[in-house]
């Protein structure tokens, strides 16, 4: 079955094309089932080869498809190893569930088939990204997920905010892509190839520390764009303008983890650049903290989850930064389950409340939507880090690995602990405000449980949320062994004894419970606390970072553009007109001129030509 890996990418691509061109004729709900079927088929094809790695009887393999850019030696080639297999399972598994959910959620939308076309395009793009056997092909997937994200955020494009959010996401990501591009230039200059096996096989001998640091920092710029880290995280909260299944799939479970995945894939390079690791870890921790603080203040249920995603991505980045690649990927995995579940649950709530997203107008939904309530409850405990839910294990591993580095790293560990408290706090706030207490909805709202197509995905994700953490406990490291071949030769984080791990785990557990208790006492009341003014207002608007960027980057950039545009008219053409006037007045003394313009351009061109010749001779002579 390993030979059929290309089908995993091809099937969703065909699904996207079918729904793009024939969607109108196919119509609802069949086009949705085609979309779901394509992703489910990919999942099923990938299961068996993936299990081969679990059984330990499979070797990583590359699959040559065709020669792409011969002069760069780039082939369309896929790499099937435990890491790509894991991501493929997440993308197609969670993806299939979210397709299923969308059949219910997008019911009645006039562009229903188009939505599934874009979703399938996203799945195919993401699979190109994770299955790539070289950086160039990875970049193809990297950009195409950006495209699908753009299309899906601005899916309801008649809404100006949605259109603007899509554009913002793509442009901010492009800033990161520049880092990826430059990193690839450096990589090619050093290795003459983009192939992972050659690069990772020879990197220690080929790269100097400086070069490795430069490459990894540039890759981190790219990761900061995709995985929404400081200072490029600003697109993600706005991306919530997209339909909620999109937020769940792309802006929580899969695409935003691409940066973490890419850095984990490049682990060999990061191992050569300790300085980069420090910077990555610090930015990860700082992002986790900032986003958690902002999440506490948000009133819109989706925005809480958006900032929470940024914060959790910060944890993963911290993990990669301290060299705990397995832990980072482990948290990526558990997060994919519980965060997708949280978003889908939120979508279920929003659906039931006829589009209401303000938590102040919810409350008491527990009885109306029991399945949503119970499944989201599991996700709430998982993300808060409560034993034995999945988030507890994965978050704990990252924090333990950070602690084990000692020295200045204790500070990052401390930040991680603070974030753990805040996480438990804001998630409890969300959960209590939404489901518990007295109903605060308008009289005309009639909340109801969502249809089966929406609740089944919730239940499946709920099961994984509860149990998946158990695949990698300090006592049974199945996950780590599974990923071993992908991180071949990279030493494990040292100094982690079982005693230390257990004591650290107790600390995180205690602070998580503390966060829950504080939030519970504050919000499980009849009269909600007033959260306006001062700190609350500033946090609510994300401390005005968007405005800051607007004032210091967008506005000056626009002025510079206008300057460039006007320079053409005023300086370059204007010089011509100036010369023209001169030529004309000189010319008029001799003879009335008919075509002053001709002389103008003749003049400016002659001047430019002379200038070029002078430069030519000067520079040429200097060589």
């Amino acid at each position, binding site marked *: 079955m390993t030979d059929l890996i290309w089908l995993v990418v091809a099937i969703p691509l065909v699904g996207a094309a079918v729904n793009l061109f024939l969607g109108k004729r196919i119509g609802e709900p069949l086009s949705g089932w085609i979309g779901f079927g394509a992703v489910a088929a990919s999942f099923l094809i990938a299961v068996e080869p993936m299990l081969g790695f679990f059984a330990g009887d499979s070797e990583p393999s590359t699959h040559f498809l065709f020669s792409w850019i011969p*002069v*760069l030696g780039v082939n369309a080639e896929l790499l099937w190893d435990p890491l790509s297999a894991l991501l493929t399972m997440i993308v197609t598994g969670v993806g299939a569930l979210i397709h299923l959910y969308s059949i219910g959620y997008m019911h009645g939308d006039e562009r229903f088939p188009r939505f599934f076309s874009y979703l399938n395009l996203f799945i195919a793009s993401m699979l190109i990204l994770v299955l790539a056997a070289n950086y160039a092909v990875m970049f193809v997937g990297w950009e195409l997920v950006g495209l699908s994200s753009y299309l899906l955020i*601005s899916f309801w494009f008649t809404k100006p905010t949605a259109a603007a959010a899509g554009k913002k996401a793509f442009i901010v990501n492009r800033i990161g892509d*520049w880092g990826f591009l430059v990193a690839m*230039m450096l990589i090619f*200059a050093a290795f003459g190839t983009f192939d992972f096996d*050659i690069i990772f096989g020879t990197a220690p001998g080929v790269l100097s520390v400086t070069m490795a640091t430069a490459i990894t920092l540039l890759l981190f710029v790219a990761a900061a764009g995709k995985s929404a880290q400081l200072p490029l995280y600003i697109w993600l909260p706005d991306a919530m303008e997209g339909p909620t299944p999109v937020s769940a799939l792309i802006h929580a479970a899969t695409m935003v983890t691409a940066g973490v995945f890419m850095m984990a894939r490049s682990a060999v390079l990061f191992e050569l650049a300790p300085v980069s690791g420090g910077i990555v870890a610090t930015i990860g921790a700082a992002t986790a903290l900032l986003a958690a603080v902002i999440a506490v203040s948000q009133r819109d249920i989706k925005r809480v989850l958006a900032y929470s995603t940024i914060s959790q991505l910060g944890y993963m980045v911290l993990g990669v930064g301290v060299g705990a690649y397995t832990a980072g990927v482990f948290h990526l995995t558990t997060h994919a389950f519980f965060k997708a579940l949280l978003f889908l649950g939120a979508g279920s709530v929003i659906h039931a409340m006829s589009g209401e997203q303000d938590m102040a107008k919810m409350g008491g939904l527990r009885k109306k939507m029991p399945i949503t309530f119970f499944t989201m409850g599991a996700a709430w405990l998982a993300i808060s880090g409560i034993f034995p839910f999945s988030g507890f294990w994965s978050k704990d591993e990252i924090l333990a690995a950070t602690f084990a580095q000692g020295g200045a790293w204790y500070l990052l560990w401390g930040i991680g602990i603070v974030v753990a408290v805040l996480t438990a706090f804001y998630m409890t706030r969300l959960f209590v405000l939404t489901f518990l207490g007295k109903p605060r909805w308008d009289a005309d709202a009639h909340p109801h449980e969502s249809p089966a197509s929406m609740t089944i995905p919730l239940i499946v994700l709920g099961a994984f949320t509860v149990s998946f953490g158990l695949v990698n406990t300090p006592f049974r490291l199945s996950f780590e062994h599974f990923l071993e071949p992908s991180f071949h030769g990279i030493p494990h984080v040292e100094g982690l004894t079982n005693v230390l791990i257990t004591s650290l785990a107790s600390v995180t557990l205690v602070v998580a419970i503390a966060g829950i208790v504080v939030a519970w006492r504050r919000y499980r009341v009849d009269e909600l606390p007033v959260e306006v003014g001062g700190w609350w207002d500033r946090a609510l608007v994300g401390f005005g970072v968007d405005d800051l960027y607007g004032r210091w980057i967008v506005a000056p950039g626009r002025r510079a*553009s206008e300057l*460039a545009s006007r320079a053409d008219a005023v300086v370059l053409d204007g010089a011509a007109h100036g010369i023209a006037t001169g030529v004309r007045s000189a010319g008029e003394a001799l003879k009335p001129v008919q075509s002053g313009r001709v002389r103008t351009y003749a003049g400016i061109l002659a001047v430019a030509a002379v200038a070029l010749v002078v430069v030519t001779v000067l520079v040429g002579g200097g060589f």
Partner: protein
Amino acid sequence: MPVLTILIALPFVGAAIIGLLPRRRPEVVFPVAIGVSVAPLAVAIYLLAEYSLDGTTFQFFENYVLSERFGIAWELAIDGISLFMVVLTAVLFPLAIAASASVRDKLKTYMILMLVLEGAVLGVFLALDLLVFFAFFEIVLIPMYLLISMWGSDRRAYAALKFVVFTAIGSAFLLVGIIVLGILAGDAVGATSSFDWRVMLSMDISESTQMWLFAGFGIAFAIKVPLFPFHTWLPDAHTEAPTAGSVILAGVLLKMGAYGLLRFNLSLFPDASVDLAPVLAVLGVIGIIYGAAAAIVQPDIKRLVAYSSVSHMGFIILGIFAFTSQSLQGSVFQMISHGLTTGALFLLIGMIYDRTHTRAISDYGGLAKQMPVYAGIFLFSAFASAGLPGLSGFVGEFTILVGSYLTLPVLTIIAGLGVILAAVYLLWAYERVFTGPLNPKLEGLKDLSFRELAIMVPLVVLIIGLGVYPKPVMDRIQPSVEQIIDRLEGASDYQVPEFGRLTDVESVVGVGHEGGGG
């Protein structure tokens, strides 16, 4: 069979046929024009199919001496670079002609001019005799000038004049250069003069002479490309020209400049090329950033695309003067791709202009609701232009950037910023024209007609095809590019850096690579 002569002659014959059409039957002009413009395409496809991959660079060679004494010959041949310029020309002209359905006034003259233009452009790409090349290079000016000045929009007189004056002045430098070079070549072969490019290749020109000649040729081509700061004719000409004129200007005419630099400056003046490369590369990179920055704030959608051309052509110049196999191949590839993507954008703008008669971005809004197919193809073309992987623009830009970094690292890193700016100007323009609530003035607009779709679909298919599987094109460009680099290395002290050529990396790094299996 003198197939290249036939290729050049076909459009002129077509023009004559249209000239002979009865004046009483104006309705046949349009279909006949499309019909005759397809003939060169058929020949181009034949060339593409017959072009041998055995590594010979110049094929289909033809040589008829015109003047023994002055060394002038009707000398035509095609290599991996001109092959695709010819194909691009032959593809874009029928599409541009088919997109001219809204032309009512003096349709016969219009079509004759288009076909004369096509014949002249083909001559430029095929001639190996510099005087014949120059003749075609100049003939191109006349129909283009007339097309802009007679069928252009409001400021057409100004734009057409500006176009002619800029280009003609460049041509003056070029002519002086060609004559000097011709006399030098004449000395070498014992004749009054010789304009045979291959004779010139064998000459040994002193470095200082090379500098002057490079400047003469370079100014003419730099204006045509156009290279900053000679670009100010371009936004006016592109914006005021009728749709077909803009398509041909951006798609084909600008390539004549880049082609000239590749064919003549690099191989005839290798020392000067190496010495001056930093200057031209710097100007190219300024063009990338400056053109993109200026594009962002243009209130006129056509002008925005025109400025984007300045930016894209900057990439091509950077690649040409970075002198690596990758950068040069990328540049040639980008010349093709830019012709397709920018051609597509200008065609699309023409289609909406035919409906609304406005190019101001602020006159639009929410159009995707009213014209979804149009919006989809526009967005596709915009992403192709912004270099989205999987589409042709990426292959060219990426190969240029990776290849140029090997010799010009700092400039190339700056050039990479153009990729961000491209997303800004294209997506912001798309947002304002196509998203948000529908501007009430746009209600009732019809989506693309069958004819318009038939024009766009070939471009869409080519853009995807070249983006996903560029290998057949790359394989044909490769030997010609290697020849240019061989020439540079042989005739100057330039040395291609490691990995600057197609290398067998596995043998360099000494690892077994298990690719190709599966």
